[in-house]
């Protein structure tokens, strides 16, 4: 047996963990039989392993504290993940925002009526402005930097006009709208053949709220909306399909991640 490969320290560790293949196990045992000190050391390792498990395994039997179960379930998070999964199926990736607040300290999520209200306002704004041929926007895409700076200043939060070229949409421009609790930024995009999409952005009074993506249909307008940190967003279009809108939502969402 002494002609065989020498016993390594890694093998001794694996032996202590009872993870060695049978043939090497026999070799290690023969080796240890001739070395009392090492044999004792390995036996101690096993004893210590047992002591560690005895000390900490009881945690496995304890009921899970409610706040941890909540943090794991995080239904909004799960719905976002479902969206991410749906997007993955469609060939898109979507991020989940960093900066979740601790469940216990987060304010209540956006109330459905409030969110639905935003979706409705976005749909109304869409049907109001998207048919416009001559005056679809106040400030055109040729002055995008000015537009974004202006809207950011009026809303009091940093607003961006996401690049939606990947979805075949180019920025037309934007305007300021009155919202129920303050100014609203309204961006318009269109495809080469004139199909339009608008993005409604409002500043959120309570920071760090986040909601799942939601979809609604107001008459003929599809709306995707969500709240992420400082802003509530609603994408509205009467021209794009639900899948196209979802694609755009993921693009927007990715770009708005800090």
């Amino acid at each position, binding site marked *: 047996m002494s002609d065989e490969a020498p016993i390594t320290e890694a093998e001794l560790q*694996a032996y202590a963990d009872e993870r060695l293949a049978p043939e090497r196990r026999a070799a290690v045992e023969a080796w240890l039989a001739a070395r009392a000190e090492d044999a004792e*050391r390995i036996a101690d*390792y096993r004893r210590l392993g047992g002591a560690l498990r005895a*000390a*900490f395994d009881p945690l496995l039997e304890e009921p899970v504290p409610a706040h941890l179960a909540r943090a794991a379930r995080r239904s909004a998070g799960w719905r976002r*993940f479902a969206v991410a999964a749906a997007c993955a199926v469609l060939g898109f990736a979507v991020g*989940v925002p960093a900066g979740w607040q601790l469940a216990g300290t987060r304010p209540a999520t956006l109330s459905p009526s409030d969110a639905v209200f935003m979706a409705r306002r976005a749909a109304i704004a869409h049907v109001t402005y998207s048919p416009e041929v001559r005056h679809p926007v106040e400030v055109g895409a040729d002055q995008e930097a000015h537009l974004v700076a202006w809207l950011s200043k009026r809303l009091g939060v940093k607003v961006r006009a996401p690049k939606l070229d990947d979805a075949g949409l180019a920025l037309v421009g934007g305007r300021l709208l009155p919202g129920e609790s303050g100014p609203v930024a309204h961006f318009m995009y269109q495809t080469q053949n004139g199909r339009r999409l608008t993005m409604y952005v409002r500043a959120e009074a309570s920071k760090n709220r986040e909601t799942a993506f939601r979809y609604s249909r107001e008459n003929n307008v599809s709306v995707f909306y969500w709240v992420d940190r400082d802003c509530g967003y609603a994408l509205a279009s009467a021209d794009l399909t639900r899948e196209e809108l979802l694609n755009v939502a993921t693009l927007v969402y990715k770009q708005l991640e800090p």
Partner: protein
Amino acid sequence: MNESERLVELIPRLRRYARALAGDRATADDLVQDTLERAWSKLHLYRRGTDLRAWLFTVMHNVHVNRVRAKRPTDPLDEAMPELASRASQGDALLVRDLDRAIARLPEEQRAVLLLVTLEEMSYDEVAQTLAIPIGTVMSRLSRARDKLRAMMLGGVAAKLKVIK
């Protein structure tokens, strides 16, 4: 089963590891909570179909390291450190206390390897993957961690003088 349910299922194991890692219950549960929050925020980085447990322990490891780094300078084991425990220690509470103190004295990176192998019973490959270190490093850290733990828990001159590469 969706990721949410699997996360819930893994909580007891996260708690066990966190408890051993962090040394006390409150810190451990904070660590678990931070880990779950972080896991949700990073879920897009998790590749479906791969080992969610290993991924989650990676997240916990990173969260823990960041917290430790933010809190205090590391206090690596002084080789000449006095023995912490004696064989006279009796009872579970004492054992746990002694183990806590001994584990706390292990260098951070050795502690993680030892606990993942011993408590989580991860394969060495899984540990390497979880901690993003080569398997050779896993083995050497495991060896060092055990040697130090042995010296602290079981004492004995022989154990202390033993030199492990």
